[in-house]
């Protein structure tokens, strides 16, 4: 008896479709990791960026013209100053009085609106803070940290200046040290 030697050539290796799926999966994984790293190194959103609309619920007693929440788009045509703060944040205390003075100066013009966004804070402590520094401009919590995530804040305090067209013009990281410093940012925006 003779052994059968009539065999077809052996095909060996991972099928093409499996290879494609594995490579696509790996490439996707790398893209996700790269995006995460890129986002982590990006820092805050940069001037020149058209700021998307968002809604800020307001603390009772800190409403804007009786409204319990405001949208950024409500203030198109005005200069918007968005200040991120927290009651546990000591540097925020350094600028609280200056911000309030600036608000008192610009509020009567009706051309500037200040919005305080309370970051990762508890309402009772936030209220104590607002009362302590006599803050009167609209303030509210950053629910689910959506607004701070959008601005990619790195800490508090941080202040964002948005022009009449909704374009971010200036970012202040850290506390203001004087009223003049705030005026130097807002006045040129009003003059445009």
């Amino acid at each position, binding site marked *: 008896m003779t052994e059968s030697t009539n065999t077809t050539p052996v*095909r*060996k290796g991972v099928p093409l479709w499996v290879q494609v799926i594995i490579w696509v999966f790996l490439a996707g994984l790398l893209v996700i990791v790269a995006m995460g790293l890129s986002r982590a190194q990006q820092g805050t959103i940069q001037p020149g960026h058209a700021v998307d609309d968002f809604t800020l619920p307001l603390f009772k007693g800190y409403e804007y013209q009786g409204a319990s929440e405001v949208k950024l788009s409500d203030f198109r045509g005005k200069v918007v100053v968005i200040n991120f703060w927290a009651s546990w944040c000591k540097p925020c205390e350094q600028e609280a009085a200056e911000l309030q003075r600036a608000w008192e100066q610009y509020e009567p013009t009706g051309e500037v609106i200040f919005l305080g966004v309370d970051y990762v804070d508890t309402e009772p402590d936030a209220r104590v803070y607002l009362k302590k520094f006599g803050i009167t401009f609209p303030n509210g919590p950053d629910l*689910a*940290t959506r607004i701070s995530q959008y601005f990619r804040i790195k800490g508090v305090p941080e202040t964002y200046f948005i022009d009449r067209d909704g374009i971010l013009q200036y970012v202040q990281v850290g506390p203001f040290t004087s009223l003049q410093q705030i005026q130097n940012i807002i006045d040129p925006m009003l003059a445009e």
Partner: protein
Amino acid sequence: MLNNRKLRVANYKLPLAILAVLIVSLLFAAAVFAQDDMPTDDEVNKIAKDLYCPVCESTPLDVCPTEACRQWRELIRQQLAEGKSEEEIKQYFVTQYGARVLSEPPNRLASYLVPALAFLAGVFLLFRGFRMWIKPMAVESASGEKEAAPIPQDDYIRRMEEELKKRK
């Protein structure tokens, strides 16, 4: 006369003793009342250990020393005192600060299903891939019977087998 004085003292002793017992009882009652009203640190930390403050990532709330976390713990204590349940308190924190404050993802089907399906798909692909990679595919012989294709042997194996035969 002495007997009368003794009698009068005895008459006072009983009400005084009752009064003393009452005062002591009230003191204890007050202490118990305060304890019921204010949740203990253990009760607060039981909830706090499952929460993470976004300011101090990777540090559970129950051991985080920052001011922000201290405020959060006080808020938990306050809500416990108001009679809120653990679930209600956690839900409050999720609403206020987002689902990322939870140590475990919320019990959504997708949170568990997607990773499980991705894992199973990976296992399937790897299993299938390696099996086809290592085990040669069965081929049809001329007689029509299936048999395993011969494994091609390289020169090294052939020489080794020859050496082994010689040694036998």
